[in-house]
Each structure stands twice: as structure tokens, then as C-alpha cells.
């Protein structure tokens, strides 16, 4: 068993191994260093996994040496490799970026607990992405949610606590719904391995249980992924969490639930329930469309910059839901690639917001006037991100919009409507991005506002611009992101590579 074969287990093991260490050794600055080291190693491992997965082959790693349906098996294909890369990348970027801004938001006393929770959140998300066992997804979902609650409650403002509480209630209800769904699936098939479930669920004759299981799983995951009507926990959670935490959870955490939705819908329910596409479309398209419009409209009238970006995340998740609902290769590729690209765009934008918050001590759009002159580099990064949201070429947003519209066009007249919806909502994105740009560049700072003169510190600016430049790189050379996404879409839909 060379090291190379052990990689799938290593990507999670490294994080889980360092978490207790980061908690125990409490010297000054050690928890942060241990956390960053572990997350960066995990990122490197994830990239090498992606390298193998881009060849189109799926890695099966039997945990504890037990064969598939009996033991737990890690199942890494192109989709999981791409998501693992996104999660660990976003986590390391946020950690490196957050060194300074976390230092003053999270006191010295709670630092060990905080960074151990950070490691566990990353481990939970990556664990969910690579595992091939339905119940194991639930366990790692719990790890990531519990640690996310801890991370959010570390926010300085007292409203962070009440938003954490609401997130705990909705998150646990969502996870329990997922558990009920898995329970019903287990009841009709007798196994928990996703591949095995997919094979056996086809021969089930009493279809009622499978339908209800599909309903529960989808609703549960929709709550965790903040799909529109069930998103009420997300804006407050993003707004009152510490800035570096918002960068990480905005880029990665909601996408993982959408990943699980894709995995469950396409690997298990697709080949069992007869016209599952129709159900999926009926379930996701209305939700997606509502998310698109409601998210953008709420963002337009929002005063707080972080909540504005959170609402824009709600509408971007609507795009992904639409992509999933189209059940075609192009649609699924668009959804997967948008998960990756949106992670990049939002990560960069929230980093810029964190730089602004560090200097201006507030994230209210009104008193960020004149930020364009005071902090040119930060605002430039924010504008690049904003253009990405709109879907202007040379930004990652363009690529995902390209695939979504391409997929919609294949659907005939309903598709034409979808195209109109997608484009109108990206025009709404123009409005709320331009609202911020006008305030920042063309309005003089208010007299009583605290005069901000110097740029954000170099240690925060460089990671921000690294993320923005990677975004532009993935806009120009899409061989990695679109390559992995199309292989994933083809394997999920059973189309030849």
C-alpha cells in the first residue's frame, strides 16, 4: 500500500489528526499554524486526487479493509475531487487570509477551540464529499454543521448568538430529515452504500417508500443548502460570523449539500423512480427560479454589505439548482462548474469585504463611501468579484452562465423561458453590484465618518488577489474546472466519456 494509494483516506485523516493537537497545545499562535499546515497539506492531497480523477477513473478505497456493502467505502470520482479541491482551497485561503482579522475577533483564550473547530469543519465537509456511504454522509454532515455553529457563534456581535441558534434549529431539522430519508432507503434496500443503493433501489416494487425517501432527502438537503424558501438562517449566519469564517462557509459549505443532492438524485433515485427527471424538474425549477429573483431583489434593497452578498449567494444557489434540474449533460456540467466558480467569486468578494471591515470598522454600504480612493486594490478585487456575479467574460461566472444557457436552449420553449429567467436575474445582479460601486467610487466620504487613508494590510491583500487571479485563470483556461465537471456529469448520467 504505497502512500499514493492511501491518499483518499489521508485527505480527511490529516485534518482529524491535527484537530486534537491544535486543541491541546495552546502556545501563542500554534493553533492557527497547525490548522493552516493541516489544511494546506489536505489541499495538496486533494489536488493530486483531482489529477487522478481527471483521467476519468473512479478511486474506490475500502475503509478498514472491508468490502463494499459491508464496510464503508470512499468513492472519489471527478465530482468529489473537484469539490474536495474547492473546500480545502477555500479553507486554506480563508485561514491564511484570516490570520490578522481573526486575531482581533477571536480572543487568545478561545483560539485553540476555534481553530480545532475550523479543522473539523473542513474535515466534515471533505468527509461528506469523498465518502460513498449514505449514513457516513450524515455523520460528517453533523461534524461540519456542529463546527460551523461553533465558528459562527465566535462572532463579536451579540446577534451572532441568536443567528447561531436559528441555524442550529434549521440545520438539525434538515439533517434529521436526511436521516429519515436514509432510514426509509435502508428499509427498502437493506444497504447503506450509495453505489449498492443505486443498484438495489431499482428492484423495489412498493415505490411509495422510495418516493417519500426522495422527498425527505431532498427537503433536508434543501434546508442545509439554503435553497430559497428554506434559506432564512443563511443571511444572518453569514453577516454576524467573523469575517474569515464567512469567507470559508460562503465559498464551500452550502455547495456541499448541493453536491450530496446531486449524488443522491443521480446515483440513487435516477435509475429507480420511473420519471425521476420530471419530479426533479418540478421540485427544483420553481425553487431555483424563486431563488434567482428573490435573492437578487432582496440584495438590491439591502444596506449591510455582507447580508447583500449572502442574498446574492441565495440567488446564485438558484442557478445551481436550475442546472441540476435540467438533468442533461450540459445542465449538470453548468451546475457543477458554477459550484466551483461561485466558490471562487464569493470567496474573493468576502475577503475584500473583510479588508473593508478591518479598516472601516463597519460593513454598512452607506458609510463605505469613498472606499474606491482610500482602498483602491480592495475595491478593485470587489469589482472583479461583482463582474463575476454578473457573468461578464474573463470572469468565472461567464463560463457557468455559458453552460447553463446552453443547457436551457436544449429544452425547447421551456428552455427559452429559462434562458430569459437566467439573464434577467443576472441583470438584477448588475443593479446591486453597481449600487455598491457607485457608493464606493463616486460618493465623497461623509464628514463624520472615520477618515480611512491606508490600504488593507499586505497579508490580507495578497490572498485576496490570489483568489481573484485564480478566478480569472479559471475563466480563461477551463480545462481543469470544466474538464472535471463534464466527466462528472457524464459519469452521473451514464453517458460514455
Amino acid at each position: 500500500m504505497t502512500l499514493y494509494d492511501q491518499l483518499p483516506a489521508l485527505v480527511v485523516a490529516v485534518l482529524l489528526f491535527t484537530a486534537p493537537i491544535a486543541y491541546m497545545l495552546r502556545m501563542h499562535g500554534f493553533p492557527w499554524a497547525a490548522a493552516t499546515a493541516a489544511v494546506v497539506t489536505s489541499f495538496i492531497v486533494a489536488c493530486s486526487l483531482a489529477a487522478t480523477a481527471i483521467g476519468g477513473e473512479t478511486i474506490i478505497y475500502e475503509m478498514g479493509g472491508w468490502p463494499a456493502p459491508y464496510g464503508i467505502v470512499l468513492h472519489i470520482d471527478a465530482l468529489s475531487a473537484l469539490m474536495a479541491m474547492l473546500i480545502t482551497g477555500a479553507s486554506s485561503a480563508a485561514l491564511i487570509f484570516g490570520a490578522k482579522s481573526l486575531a482581533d475577533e477571536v480572543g487568545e483564550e478561545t483560539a485553540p477551540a476555534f481553530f480545532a473547530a475550523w479543522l473539523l469543519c473542513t474535515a466534515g465537509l471533505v468527509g461528506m464529499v469523498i465518502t460513498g456511504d449514505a449514513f457516513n454522509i450524515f455523520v460528517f454532515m453533523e461534524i461540519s454543521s456542529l463546527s460551523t455553529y461553533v465558528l459562527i457563534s465566535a462572532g463579536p456581535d451579540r446577534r451572532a448568538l441568536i443567528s447561531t441558534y436559528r441555524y442550529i434549529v434549521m440545520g438539525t431539522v434538515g439533517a434529521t430529515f436526511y436521516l429519515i430519508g436514509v432510514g426509509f432507503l435502508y428499509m427498502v434496500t437493506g444497504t447503506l452504500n450509495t453505489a449498492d443503493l443505486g443498484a438495489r433501489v431499482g428492484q423495489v416494487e412498493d415505490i411509495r417508500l422510495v418516493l417519500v425517501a426522495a422527498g425527505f432527502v431532498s427537503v433536508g438537503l434543501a434546508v442545509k443548502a439554503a435553497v430559497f424558501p428554506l434559506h432564512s438562517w443563511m443571511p444572518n449566519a453569514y453577516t454576524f460570523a467573523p469575517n474569515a469564517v464567512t469567507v470559508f462557509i460562503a465559498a464551500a459549505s452550502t455547495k456541499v449539500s448541493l453536491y450530496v443532492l446531486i449524488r443522491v438524485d443521480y446515483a440513487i433515485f435516477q435509475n429507480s423512480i420511473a420519471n425521476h427527471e420530471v419530479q426533479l424538474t418540478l421540485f427544483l425549477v420553481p425553487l431555483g427560479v424563486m431563488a434567482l429573483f428573490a435573492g437578487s431583489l432582496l440584495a438590491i434593497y439591502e444596506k449591510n454589505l455582507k447580508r447583500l452578498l449572502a442574498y446574492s449567494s441565495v440567488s446564485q444557489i438558484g442557478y445551481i439548482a436550475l442546472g441540476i434540474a435540467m438533468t442533461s449533460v450540459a445542465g449538470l456540467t453548468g451546475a457543477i462548474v458554477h459550484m466551483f466558480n461561485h466558490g471562487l467569486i464569493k470567496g474573493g468578494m468576502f475577503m475584500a469585504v473583510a479588508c473593508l471591515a478591518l479598516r472601516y470598522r463597519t460593513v454598512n454600504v452607506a458609510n463605505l463611501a469613498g472606499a474606491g480612493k482610500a482602498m483602491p486594490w480592495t475595491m478593485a478585487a470587489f469589482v472583479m468579484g461583482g463582474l463575476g456575479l454578473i457573468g461578464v467574460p474573463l470572469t468565472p461566472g461567464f463560463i457557468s452562465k455559458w453552460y447553463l444557457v446552453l443547457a436551457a436552449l436544449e429544452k425547447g420553449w421551456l428552455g427559452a423561458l429559462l434562458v430569459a429567467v437566467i439573464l434577467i436575474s443576472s441583470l438584477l445582479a448588475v443593479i446591486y453590484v453597481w449600487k455598491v460601486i457607485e457608493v464606493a467610487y463616486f460618493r465623497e466620504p461623509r464628514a463624520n465618518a472615520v477618515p480611512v487613508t491606508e490600504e488593507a494590510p499586505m497579508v490580507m491583500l495578497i490572498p485576496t488577489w490570489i483568489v481573484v487571479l485564480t478566478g480569472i485563470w479559471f475563466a480563461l483556461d477551463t480545462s481543469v474546472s470544466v474538464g472535471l465537471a463534464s466527466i462528472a456529469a457524464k459519469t452521473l448520467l451514464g453517458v460514455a466519456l
Partner: protein
Amino acid sequence: MAVLGLYNYFVFAVLLMIGLYCLLARTNIIKSIIGLSMFQSAVFLLYISMDKVDGGTAPIIQEGVENQIFANPLPQVLILTAIVVGISTTALALAVAVRIREAYGTIEEDKIQEMDRKQ
């Protein structure tokens, strides 16, 4: 007579209903947390009522005993994990409730919402 066999699942459904109702209808945070833990423990009932086999006993294989029917061990393992998940979530929720009480002075969600709106 057949319906009696499904009684477990009906109780599971009723407990879910009560748990969810308690969660949604009550504004007190501690009461909602109790509702949440009830909601979770209902699911345990669903899994464990799957593992019963007529005439079976707990899956402990003694040497001497031959052709003994055993209950299904898998749901039990899953529920062992789920119970501990339940208690961890409750513990965390209670800790947050205590902090909310100290920060806001009350644990009624509607009063907290008013305070937030005024702020």
C-alpha cells in the same frame, strides 16, 4: 391485526409531529431545544423498530447456543451514533441558549427579535 405491526411507525410519525410542532409553535428557546431532542429521538424509534426479528434476541453470540435467531445489528450501530449526535447538538444548543440569556437577558425568541429590530 396487520396494523398492529405498523404501530411503531405510527408512533414515530406522531412523535415527529409533536417534536416539530413544539419546535415551531413555542418561542421559548429551552422548550424548542427539548422539542428538537424529541424530534431526533423519534428517528431512533424508526431505525430500531426495523431491527426486531420475531423470536430473536440481542445479537450477542454465546458459544454454546446453536441456531439462535438474532436481531439485526446494523440499525443499532447507526442509532448508537445518532444518540451521541443528538446529545452533542443538545449540549451545544444549551450552551448557546445560556450565552443568549446572558447577552439578551431573556430566552423568548419574540422578545429577542424586538431587541434586534430596535438595535
